[in-house]
C-alpha cells in the first residue's frame, strides 16, 4: 500500500509539473467553460428564480464538457513518445498510475470550478436558498465521479483511432446517474425546495462503486495492446 501511495505521489508530482509548464489542460478547460457561461447568459437572460432552477444543469454540463478536454490531455501526454510503454515495462503497479491521473484530473477540475464559480454567481445572479454548506460536498463527489470514470474510459479509448470522439461516447452514458444526482442535488440546494440528502448519498455510492471497479480493471486496460 505504501508503495502504491509513494508511486502515486511521484506520478502526480510529475503530472502537475508537466501541466504547470504546458498549461494545456487548464487553459482549454477555462476557455471552454468561459464560453458556456457567457453564451448561455446572453442567450437566456434568466431571472434569479429561473437561474436557480437551471443552474445545476448548466454548471455541471459545462464542467462535464470541460473535464473531457482535461481527460484527453492526461493520456495523450503519455502517448507522446510512447512514454506509457516505459511505465508498462516497469515494476510499478498500474493502480498508482491510475490514482495519480484521477487525483491530478480532480485537482484540475477543482481549480476550474474555483475560478468559474464566481463568474456563474455574477452572470446568473445565484444565491443558495438551501443549505449552502452542501454545495462543496456535491462539487467534490460530482467531480470525483466525472474524473474517475473519465480517466478510466480515456485510458480505454487511448489506442482507438478517434479517441476524442470515443471518450464522450463511452463516458456520457455511464455518467448519467451521477450527472442526474449532481444536477438534482445542486438544484435542491440552490432552490431550497427539497432535501439534497438522497442525491448526495447516491453520488457517494456511485463514487465508491466506480472507483473500486476502475481500480480492479485498470491493470487490464494498461496492459492491453
Amino acid at each position, binding site marked *: 500500500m505504501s508503495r502504491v501511495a509513494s508511486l502515486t505521489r*511521484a506520478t502526480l508530482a510529475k503530472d502537475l509539473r*508537466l501541466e504547470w509548464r504546458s498549461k494545456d489542460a487548464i487553459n482549454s478547460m477555462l476557455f471552454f467553460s468561459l464560453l458556456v457561461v457567457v453564451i448561455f447568459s446572453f442567450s437566456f437572460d434568466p431571472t434569479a428564480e429561473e437561474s436557480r432552477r437551471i443552474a445545476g444543469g448548466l454548471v455541471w454540463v459545462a464542467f462535464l464538457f470541460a473535464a473531457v478536454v482535461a481527460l484527453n490531455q492526461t493520456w495523450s501526454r503519455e502517448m507522446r*513518445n510512447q*512514454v506509457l510503454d516505459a511505465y508498462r515495462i*516497469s515494476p510499478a503497479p498500474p493502480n498508482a498510475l491510475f490514482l495519480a491521473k484521477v487525483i491530478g484530473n480532480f485537482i484540475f477540475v477543482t481549480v476550474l470550478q474555483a475560478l468559474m464559480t464566481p463568474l456563474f454567481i455574477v452572470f446568473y445572479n445565484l444565491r443558495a436558498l438551501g443549505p449552502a454548506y452542501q454545495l462543496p460536498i456535491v462539487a467534490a463527489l460530482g467531480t470525483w465521479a466525472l474524473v474517475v470514470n473519465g480517466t478510466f474510459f480515456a485510458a480505454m479509448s487511448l489506442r482507438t483511432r478517434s479517441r476524442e470522439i470515443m471518450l464522450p461516447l463511452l463516458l456520457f452514458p455511464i455518467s448519467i446517474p451521477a450527472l442526474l444526482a449532481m444536477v438534482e442535488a445542486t438544484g435542491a440546494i440552490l432552490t431550497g425546495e427539497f432535501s439534497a440528502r438522497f442525491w448526495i448519498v447516491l453520488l457517494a455510492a456511485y463514487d465508491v462503486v466506480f472507483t473500486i471497479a476502475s481500480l480492479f480493471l485498470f491493470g487490464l486496460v494498461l496492459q492491453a495492446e
Partner: protein
Amino acid sequence: MLPAFVVTGLVKQFGRFAALRGVNAEFAPNRLYAILGDNGAGKTTLLRALAGLTPPTRGSISMLGTSDLRSVCSQLGYMAHPSLLYDEMSGMENLRYFARLYEMSDRGQNNEDRCAEVIRAVKLDPMLTRPVGQYSQGMRQRMSLARALLNDPKILLLDEPFSNVDLRSAREMVSLLKGLRDAGKTIFVVTHQASLLEGAADEFIWMEAGQIVSRTPNLTARTETQ
C-alpha cells in the same frame, strides 16, 4: 546459467497480418545480439514481444527461466524508436521519475547519483536543464539509452539505437554496449546499420517475413550462405 530468453512457436497477428510467424529461438545470456532484416521483417514486433509489450497471439516466451515476464521486468531495459521520455522535462527530471518507478532508492541506490552516472555514460551532461523536447535527435536518442540503462538491467532491448546519431556517437554507443556485454549483460540490438556491430556482436540474427531465417557469428557468414 539460465537463458536470457526461450521463444517457442511465437506468432503475432495484427488482424490478418502476421508480423511473427512461429519464431523458435533460445538466446544465451551475456551476449550481444544484432537483429537484422528488411522493414516489416518483424524485428520490432519481436523486441516488443520480448519486452512483454506485445502479447503473443500464440506461442510462449520465457525470460530468465520464467514465463511470467512481469515478475522479472525489473531485469529489463528497453529502448524504443520513440524516446519514451517526457519532452517538457529535462533529462535528469525524466530519469528521476523513472528511478522512482523502479524504486531504486529502496534497493540501496542513490537515485541522484545513478541518474547522473547513466547520463554521463551516454556522454551527456546531467546538469543540462533544457527540456528533452529541445534536444537534438541524437541527444534524445542517447538520453533514451540512459533511461534504458537506469535500472541496471540484466537484459537490454534496443530498437534502432543508432538512428539519427552521428557516426562518432554511434561508435561510442557500440563501445558502451560492448562494455556492458563484458560486464555480464545480454543485449539485443535491432538495427539497419549492421556494419557498426561487426566485431562487437556475438551473433547476427536475420529475420524475414516474421521468421528467424538464420543466425550467424558475423556479417560475412550470412553473405556466404546466400
